[in-house]
């Protein structure tokens, strides 16, 4: 049974249950795991956020009747996509629902949220339902051959070390990709500016690594790509971001252990073996980096992380890092290393950091 057939079976089972309830005059309901940070815990064995048992129930009440109907209609749409072996982007799904009259979505956030609910409900990823993300994946350069297939099923080999000044772009669905590589590790980088510099100076060649640009919080495809590459080729993953709460708690934490909103998917998407290279708060002191003062949102983010983030609460080194930054009241960007020359990051910082395991964060 393929994954899609499995999902189809789950959808039909759910509809059957609802039909049964209605015919027996029982109030039908849909139970959906709550997708938020307070319904996950950090599982040290699995190494990622795992969803807790909190569920929300949709039934025929004034406040939930609409989303109850929308969820069912979205399931019907997914069934349609599976049967016809078609796909729809999130935006296309939103427009399809335009014909649902009073059950239509007010905006795409609403339809996206319903889609996320269905994923959680069926315990699958939406790519298996036929819904694909709009967003493109990150850029990849390095000693890596990606084996993909064209529409006719012919194998295409893409050499990521031979992309000139460009890069290989991660596709929206990475499930069918295969890899060949002799690289030692993967380096995931926050900004495309830093990525460009490392590519230009062939950092990947010097250090024998695969560079991945995340451009902010990594998309599902990027996360899944890094995870799959790391798993398939058994490569360690290092992460290099700005030295601020966004780089740490949004970008790195999401990549490593997942997010509250997509806790049901973390199993597939996160990269538990990732390690954090920098920029750390200690780096700001050690390298005497040029800084900016912390913004109010940064401070709020740190306090929130210390108080509510199960990942931070589990890792003492992260708590100390956050507390140190609170003390410094400063943040530093990746590019701040240019203080010591444009290529200081290539010649000194990264090689030094890669050697000194004690300077990493978990």
């Amino acid at each position: 049974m393929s994954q899609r057939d499995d999902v189809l079976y789950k959808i039909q089972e759910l509809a059957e249950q609802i039909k049964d309830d209605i015919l027996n005059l029982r109030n039908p309901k849909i139970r959906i795991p709550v997708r938020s940070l307070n319904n996950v815990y950090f599982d040290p064995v699995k190494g990622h956020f795992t969803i807790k048992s909190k569920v929300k129930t949709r039934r025929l009440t004034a406040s939930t009747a609409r989303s109850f109907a929308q969820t069912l209609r979205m399931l019907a749409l997914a069934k349609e996509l599976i049967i016809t072996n078609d796909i729809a982007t999130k935006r296309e799904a939103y427009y399809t629902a335009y014909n649902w009259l009073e059950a239509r979505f007010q905006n795409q956030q609403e339809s996206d949220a319903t889609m996320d609910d269905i994923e959680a409900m069926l315990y699958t990823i939406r790519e298996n339902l036929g819904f694909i993300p709009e967003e493109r994946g990150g850029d990849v350069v390095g000693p890596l051959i990606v084996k993909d297939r064209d529409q006719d099923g012919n194998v295409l080999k893409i050499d990521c070390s031979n992309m000139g000044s460009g890069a290989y772009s991660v596709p929206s669905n990475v499930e069918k990709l295969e890899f060949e590589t002799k690289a030692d590790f993967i380096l995931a980088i926050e900004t495309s500016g830093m990525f460009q510099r490392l590519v230009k100076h062939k950092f990947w060649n010097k250090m024998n690594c695969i560079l991945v640009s995340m451009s902010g919080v990594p998309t599902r495809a990027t996360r899944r790509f890094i995870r799959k590459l790391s798993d398939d080729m058994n490569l360690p993953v290092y992460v290099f971001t700005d030295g601020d709460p966004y780089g740490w708690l949004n970008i790195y934490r999401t990549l490593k252990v997942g997010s509250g909103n997509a806790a049901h998917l973390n199993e597939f998407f996160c990269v538990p073996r990732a390690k954090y290279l920098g920029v750390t708060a200690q780096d700001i002191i050690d390298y005497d980096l040029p800084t900016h003062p912390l913004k109010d949102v940064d401070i709020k983010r740190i306090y929130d992380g210390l108080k509510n983030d199960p990942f931070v609460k589990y890792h003492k080194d992260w708590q100390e890092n956050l507390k140190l930054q609170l003390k410094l009241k400063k943040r530093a960007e990746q590019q701040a290393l240019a203080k010591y020359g444009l290529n200081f990051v290539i010649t000194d910082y990264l090689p030094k950091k890669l050697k000194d395991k004690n300077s990493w964060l978990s």
Partner: protein
Amino acid sequence: MRIDSFLKEEIKQVVKESKRNNSKEPKEEKNKQRSAEELAKQHKAISVAEFFEKNRHLLGFDNNRKALLTTVKEAVDNSLDACEEARILPEIYVELIDMGNNRFRVIVEDNGPGIVKQNIPFVFGKLLYGSKFHRLKQSRGQQGIGISAAVLYSQLTTGRATKVMSRTGKDKPAHLYELRINTLKNEPEILKEEIIEWEKEHGTRIELDLVGSYYRGAQSVDEYIKQTSIVNPHATFIYVTPDGEQRIYARVSETLPKEPKEIKPHPYGLEIGTLVKMLKLTKEKTILSFLKKEFSRVSDKVAKEILEKASVAPNEKPSQITREQAERIIDAISKTKILPPPLDCLSEIGEELIKKGLMKEVNAEFYEAVTRKPSVYKGYPFIIEAGIAYGGELPKDSPANVMRFANKIPLLYQAGSCAFTKTVIAMDWKKYGLNQPKGALPVGPLVILVHIASVWVPYTNEAKEAVANYPEIIKEVKLALQEVGRKLGKYLSKKRNVESEIKKRGYIEKYIPHISFAVKDILDLDESMKLELETKLKQILEHVRGKIEKVGFDKESNKEFDEEFKLKVHSHGIVDEIYLDEVDENESKG
């Protein structure tokens, strides 16, 4: 001193003086300087007619419109009082006939006990003849000025005599009188007296012609009769308007109200003028027995305490008491502890009957009423009652209609200065779910009824149109209104809940077809199964959310309200009989 006493004194004076001065006063020349003696003479020469002119605002004859209302009111009040005292369920017929030129004929007929033959001329033809002046008892009548003032007004404005018919029983003859008032002597003048055939076994009928004007709406005869019928649900009124519409206000209760008991005055309400007058009139031999016999709650011990504090000897003759001594007695009373007056002397309408009364005249959806326990102000016992009618056919966006009553008489004028209106405005009606602009009446489909029953209603002014602001009275009114207000608030919030439930259900039902559609799609079901799912979903909704309780207005549910009665066109025929020749206008002016 109360205005009634004031008027009585004044009339006595007027009559005495006019009897003495039989000679006619010389006509005044314009611009001629007048001596003090001449002015004094002139003052003495006024007749009852002039007295009336001077005081017509006190008597309720300020203008044509009010004169018509006052005349009807005096006659109807008398009829209701008479019926109740005789323990007869009142049936009162009122007819207004427009005779053109602002002249109206007022006919009021009752099924009361009738008036004995020899009293008829005095009841209608002598000012201040009433039987109610010297007693403290809850009654409508205004100490005997009312109906004779109407007779006088009729005579002064149209020159016509008043026609009275009365019969006291089946085996007694019916008498017809045609009367006027001798304005010089304040004595009745009988123009015609005869025994007639009358199908009625007992009752009284009065017909007066007067100058007046008829309007509908607030402060009209229509409104007076409607409101009177609300607070007198044991009475039937048949009212024929000047336009020939016959309206029937049928009784909804077969029980007469409890008869109010007469009580003696309580010392706490005593004023110096009244005390002086009582001292003059009493038959008691000593001041001690005067206090004990003429007042309620004055025991031997209390009387002695008062007199001791006032330094007045107990065996002093009442007629010998000086004004200074009287003042000391008043002062001593205020310093003496005396039991409150007996409270069983009042006759309230009752909660059930207020509701029924409102129901039969106002087609609303919610009715509530409360009767408070008796309370006391200045030694006078009183009871406050309040009622509320909400919704239904009442106008939605106008201020509440506040109906004020004193001893079951509607108060139609001076609403602004009345303690009742003020208390209604001072209350926070928003608490009970109503709109209320700042410092104004609540707005909404609302009738608020307030009634005071007392042996001595404190009015703000001579015209007896508004209740005075006594703290004890305001407190009781407030408590009564709060009680009905709370119940209204409860009803309104229930109504809102039901309305929001209906709205919610409609909202949920909108999504039922989507649910069945999706299930059908996923499971490849046929159309009939889809429909079955929808039917079942609706059943589930009903089952889960419960039956909706019925609230709100149902035009048919008010059994007491009869639309037929409200508007019945009746042809009263033409005025075919002018029963008296024109009287010389000059003569009546005296």
